[in-house]
């Protein structure tokens, strides 16, 4: 079923068992984003020390796609430099705008390549990007402070 390309097991697994959920009170930047079309909300705390992401935590509510996506993001960028994280975000954004034509680079995105299926559903791309856009904001703010 076409739907299975959207709801991959690893996505639903992250949805049921979200990583890094629960806000760490220590952070260099805190941002809140909403998806205005459906009301999904996310707050993200990012802590950057010497240009390295030492902690990224979040809280929020939303659909399986938005929650799994932010969960996977936090796994991916923890202990990365801001530059490395930026490259990951770029790669993910490209995948999301591929309309189902790209497979994603597993070297960069690891498990997050499963979101390739989401790019075929234009209504869900915003869900997948919610946490990533929040992270992008937080990274810019943290950069200013470092």
């Amino acid at each position: 079923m076409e739907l299975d390309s959207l709801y991959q097991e690893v996505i639903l697994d992250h949805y049921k068992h979200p990583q890094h959920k629960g806000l760490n009170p220590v952070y260099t930047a805190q941002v809140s984003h909403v998806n205005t079309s459906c009301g999904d909300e996310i707050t993200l705390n990012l802590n950057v020390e010497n240009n390295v992401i030492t902690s990224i935590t979040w809280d929020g509510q939303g659909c399986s796609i938005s929650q799994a996506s932010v969960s996977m993001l936090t796994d991916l960028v923890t202990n990365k430099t801001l530059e490395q994280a930026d490259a990951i975000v770029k790669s993910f954004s490209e995948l999301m705008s591929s309309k189902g034509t790209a497979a994603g680079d597993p070297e960069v995105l690891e498990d997050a390549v499963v979101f390739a299926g989401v790019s075929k559903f234009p209504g869900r791309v915003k869900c997948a990007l919610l946490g990533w856009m929040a992270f992008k904001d937080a990274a810019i703010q943290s950069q200013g402070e470092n």
Partner: protein
Amino acid sequence: MSFSVADIRKDFPIFERTIRDGKRLVYLDSGATAQKPRVVINAESDFYSKHNAAVHRGAHQLAEEATDAYEGAREIVAKFIGGQENEIIFTKSATESINLVSYAMGNAEAGNRFALTASDSIVVTEMEHHANLIPWQQLAARTGAQLNWFNVTQDSRLDLSNVDQIITANTKVVAITHQSNVLGTINPTEAIVKRAHEVGAVVVLDACQSVPHMSVNVAELDVDFLAFSGHKAVGPTGVGVLWGKAELLDELPPFLTGGSMIENVTMSTATWAPVPQKFEAGVPNMAQAVGLGAACKYLSGLGMDAVREHEIALTGYALEKMSSIEGMRIVGPLENIARGATISFTLADIHPHDIGQYVDSQGVAVRTGHHCAWPLARAMKVPATTRASFYLYNDEHDVDALVEALLGAQKYFGRF
């Protein structure tokens, strides 16, 4: 004539197509926009292919025909809601209709009955669509007037226990929805209208979810302004209606200014044409207004009481079937009294967006989210809901398809 959904569906070309790899289209999103019967599509197309010209000007036959068609539509719409022709203003949407009233009130100078100051109040309800909330929030912000509102009870009705405290001697305008686009609740207007008129306030009724679904008569309701959109009433997009009592429209200052709405113009001054032209600046959305005329005619042909009866029966069936699903929470009145055929719900802990996606894969079109009524979602303590909104072309098969798809969603997302 008996009400036959099978026959009605034949009038709507969209039901000839299939969806998601050959599945029957189960369209349960008429609360967002209704599908169009062939007569509406043809009316709009005929206007362009046979009569197109700018109305109210041009000394030629096409201009005459276009004007006849446009003014003919005004007559049909007026009759459809029990108003007078000169009380019907064509706008681009119901949103514009409400903004017209709120901005025009903001333009009123001291001495005009619509002029607002910091000592005045504006009253809305907690169940408003953003289109009937934000224009009033903004008017309050611009004038310093206070914004007050009726709360919604946990059983999805307006809390009218304190009408006299909410609507006070300082209230200038009361803007309420006739039927909630989320809850389906049909609001009683009588007590609100009575109290508003007692204190000299005008009542603006958002009838977007009522006019397409039941017989609505402005004289009986005794409201002062009423707004609805064409596209939710099987009409075209790009046309809305503002109805207002003639003497109030006379006193209300214009909103949009320009061509067609003037009486006399010098380099430094202008005077206004009589209503409704005063509120229709520019070349109007003629083809869409004509299409809306055809839509009202189509609905009248079926009979609005028959449409309402059909929807009551269908709502009863849907409420019963849906309530039997484990984990179902209907966000709206549970009893089939004073409620329309809009049913919002949550299903256990499956996010509405995921439900919407799954039922779509089964050919069932629903809406998910806060439905442009974010404060209401907060009041009902739900981040989002799934909404099935039924209309004249839906029947029990559609309810069954929805229920089956919801059971499928439970199975699909419960597999972990």
